């Protein structure tokens, strides 16, 4: 049973995260065209590799890795806020992103330490962070939808599409994950997290596409 469980977790814990290699390699090939947002996204990819490795190891050793998820949620949100700060040109938006970064980090830390266990899934912060990111992505698309005069950067656009697809699809999972862990069978849980891993892999492939389309003027 243990062996079977391990085989079934190979896809979400090993195969899907290993797709990260693709955008990282393409990003390295295109490193001469990097500007601010590309550097931050590359940092985000390396950060994801690091945390995925830790998550995979802890999963196979059957160690509760929820404390790592709390840290991952905060750092991921901070990195994405910095990425959006590089993407948006409006100063007001850049300021707002810094306020969001600070306030969310404080909220997530306070939530875990004061009202929540460190070893339980952080439903609310993860859900809030994903909803916020979807909101920022929608605002980016709205800005460029309304203003057709702006020459849309293909890298920024593709990156935002990847983030929006992943976070909008998985918001419902993040919001209901604690309930799911309490009520669903292990098989169902694996199925849902496999779906999550697939969408995450799609996001990484979209990032790879964004790097692949990089040109000197972007």
């Amino acid at each position, binding site marked *: 049973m243990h062996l079977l469980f391990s085989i079934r977790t190979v896809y979400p814990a090993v195969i899907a995260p290993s797709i990260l290699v693709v955008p990282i390699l393409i990003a390295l090939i295109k490193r001469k065209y990097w500007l601010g947002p590309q550097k931050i996204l590359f940092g985000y990819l390396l950060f994801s590799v690091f945390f995925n490795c830790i998550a995979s190891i802890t999963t196979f050793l059957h160690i509760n890795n929820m404390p790592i998820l709390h840290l991952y949620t905060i750092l991921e949100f901070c990195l994405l806020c910095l990425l959006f700060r590089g993407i948006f040109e409006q100063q007001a938006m850049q300021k707002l992103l810094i306020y969001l970064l600070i306030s969310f980090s404080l909220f997530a830390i306070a939530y875990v330490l004061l009202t929540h266990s460190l070893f339980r899934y952080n439903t609310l912060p993860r859900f809030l962070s994903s909803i916020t990111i979807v909101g920022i992505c929608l605002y980016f698309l709205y800005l460029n*939808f309304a203003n057709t005069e702006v020459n849309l950067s293909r890298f920024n656009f593709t990156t935002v599409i990847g983030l929006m*697809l992943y976070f*909008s699809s998985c918001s419902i*999972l993040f919001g*209901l994950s604690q309930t799911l862990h309490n009520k669903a*069978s292990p098989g169902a849980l694996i199925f*849902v997290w496999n779906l999550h891993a697939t*969408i995450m892999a799609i996001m990484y492939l979209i990032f790879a596409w964004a790097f692949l389309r990089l040109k000197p003027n972007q």
Partner: protein
Amino acid sequence: MSIYLYIILGMTATFLLCLATILFYIKYRKNILKKQYELKTAEVQYQKNLLKATINSQESERKRIGMDLHDEVGANLSYLRLLIENFVEKNEEISAVNQFNEQCRAIIDNIITNTRNISHNLSPLLNKSYGFQDMIYDYCDGINSSGKIAIQVTFDQDKIVKFSDTVTLAMYRVITELINNTIKHSSAKLITLCFSFGDGFCTMDYMDDGTGMAPDHKKGMGLQNIESRLGMIGASYHIKDNSSGFNLSVTWPV
């Protein structure tokens, strides 16, 4: 239904909805950009047509003035010369009249020559039997005869070159403008004009041994006119290294 099914359905539905929205967004933007591009292309085409019409009307106006000068003023002056000659033949014994005759004839000859020059300059295609080569040779001979500067013209084939009227006139104007610029600004002693013919195109290399053009030189009216005329006939041009005189290469389709 179990909660995990709701979550799976919710995730899949949101993913597909998001994907559809993004695809719609991309298609909509592409349509808008395509329309903007078409609008800009139409605007550029309109500007080109306007320029062409302006140049054409300018040429036809020049041609009209040239013909008027040639037919009206020139003819009348010739007639006047004849009248004076006849008048003198009838009054040979009067020396004062002879002197008057000489003076009038000299002045009128001068006016006729000037009028002809002006009319030919205004409308070089007045005589349609002229080919492009003849026009260029004629013009350069005129400049060479002044003795101030020498122009060498070479064509890489002997057959008579026949361009359309638009191309002939545009290239003639470009060459005269270039020569004019060389004379005015470069202190050059020699101008070399080489025409070579390729498959479907003709190239003209214009060189002088003057001071050349500074790299940061601002485009004046003359250079802008050259650009406009070359653009009108679909020609491309390239200003080469100017360290030893002005050097321009023009290629146009034939």
